[in-house]
């Protein structure tokens, strides 16, 4: 199961929602042995899929579209709220604002996103971290949608992220003072080295781009495909991974 290029979370999202980039991404997938990782899948689930599970649950709470719209904000969806709002409005338009049909469609939306992650990719996922979030599956119980297992905290011990840290400790160390790396990421790395905090929970989420880049060391091309060039550039430089850039066609 040798991958040539690792697809990151941004690429996996944009090959669904950005038509202009999709063609280019699909071309890369066709021409190279591309794949992803359980860490990327976990991140994808805790962002995209969780958002649409929440949106469906809001629809279960409300009985009109305006009520749902009121609750799509950055408190609930954080930095993804614009995307959720946009997609929600698009679905409303598609179904001529028919509440019940929109709700029926949204019920299955997250399941579609879950499946789409793997379409076109034959390779199995890299599994160095054994990411617990990747195992979360959507369930419908008691009139609501759930994604059990999606949350991940420092105290939880159900993945191999600590072993991952030990294996790549030197590379993580080299990122501590890397120019161009966001302070938030640097602080998280410092916490692991100086305070001996484990690579779990929020720290694991904060250093997500580093994790993905380090996973890419296991690919034959030592390449990561991302649309988030700005954030990945300094990490890739430091670690020795090449970015496979997605350009608009």
């Amino acid at each position, binding site marked *: 199961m040798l991958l040539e290029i690792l697809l990151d979370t941004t690429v996996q999202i*944009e090959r*669904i*929602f*950005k*038509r202009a980039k999709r063609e280019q991404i699909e071309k890369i997938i066709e021409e190279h042995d591309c794949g992803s990782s359980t860490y990327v899948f976990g991140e994808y689930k805790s962002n995209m899929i969780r958002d649409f599970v929440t949106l469906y649950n809001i629809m279960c709470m409300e009985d009109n579209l305006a009520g749902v719209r009121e609750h799509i904000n950055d408190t609930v969806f954080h930095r993804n709220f*614009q*995307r959720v709002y*946009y*997609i929600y409005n*698009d*679905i409303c338009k*598609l*179904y*001529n604002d*028919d509440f*019940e*049909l929109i709700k*029926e*469609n949204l019920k*299955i939306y997250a*399941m*579609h996103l879950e*499946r*789409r992650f793997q*379409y*076109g990719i034959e390779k199995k996922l890299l599994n160095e971290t054994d990411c617990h979030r990747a195992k979360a599956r959507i369930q*419908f119980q008691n009139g609501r949608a759930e994604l059990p297992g999606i949350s991940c905290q420092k105290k939880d011990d159900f993945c191999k992220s600590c072993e991952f840290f030990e294996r790549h400790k030197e590379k993580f160390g080299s990122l501590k003072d890397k120019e161009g790396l966001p302070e938030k990421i640097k602080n998280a790395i410092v916490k692991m080295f100086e305070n001996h905090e484990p690579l779990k929970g929020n720290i694991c989420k904060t250093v997500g781009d580093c994790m993905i880049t380090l996973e890419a060391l296991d690919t034959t091309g030592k390449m990561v495909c991302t649309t988030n060039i700005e954030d990945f550039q300094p990490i890739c430089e430091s670690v020795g991974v090449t970015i496979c850039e997605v350009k608009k066609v």
Partner: protein
Amino acid sequence: MSQTKEMLEFPYIFQKKGDTVDIQQKNIYDYINIQKEYAQDNQIYALEKRYSEINQALGIFNQRLTNLERNNFWDNEEIEVSEEDMLQEQEQSVLTNDILEEVNQLYHAEDIQDQISCCVFIAEKTFELLKMIDKPDENNYKKQVVHLFYQVVKRNYARGKFTKDQISLMTQMIEKSRKPFVCEEEYFELDEKLYLNKLEIFPEGE
């Protein structure tokens, strides 16, 4: 109940040594009586058994009748709704046929404008169909297939002329929606085919 009563062996009764003719006649008489009694007992037992079975069945029937009455089975409105359901099913079938016929017309569309004209009809009828079909059951993806088809039409009608494979897939979807039950795997097989045939179901991002 004398079902345990055993029949005496006939030759043994008659052929006891030293018995007079009278005694033999009496034995024969006793034997006949015993036989009669035995037969009667058996018949009575069979009748009693049957009676008990009928009683039991009657009890079950009465219980079911009570349940049905409790659920307003005999309510006229309910009967009317049931007829309405049948009518609705017929209407759904007519709509599905109309959609299918128009999807087949897509093969003959000369250009994209022709295609759009077909799609107006298809989208309108599919929306009507979606409004008509009952809420989907938990594990039945039948209605979701119609949703998926509707999205395919709405999101792709103006992106370019449909290929033969794409039209064939759309036909498959409508045919699939006729089935009384569509499981999750069948549904997502169609979804993957849409992906492979480059038919969009997601909106263009913001």
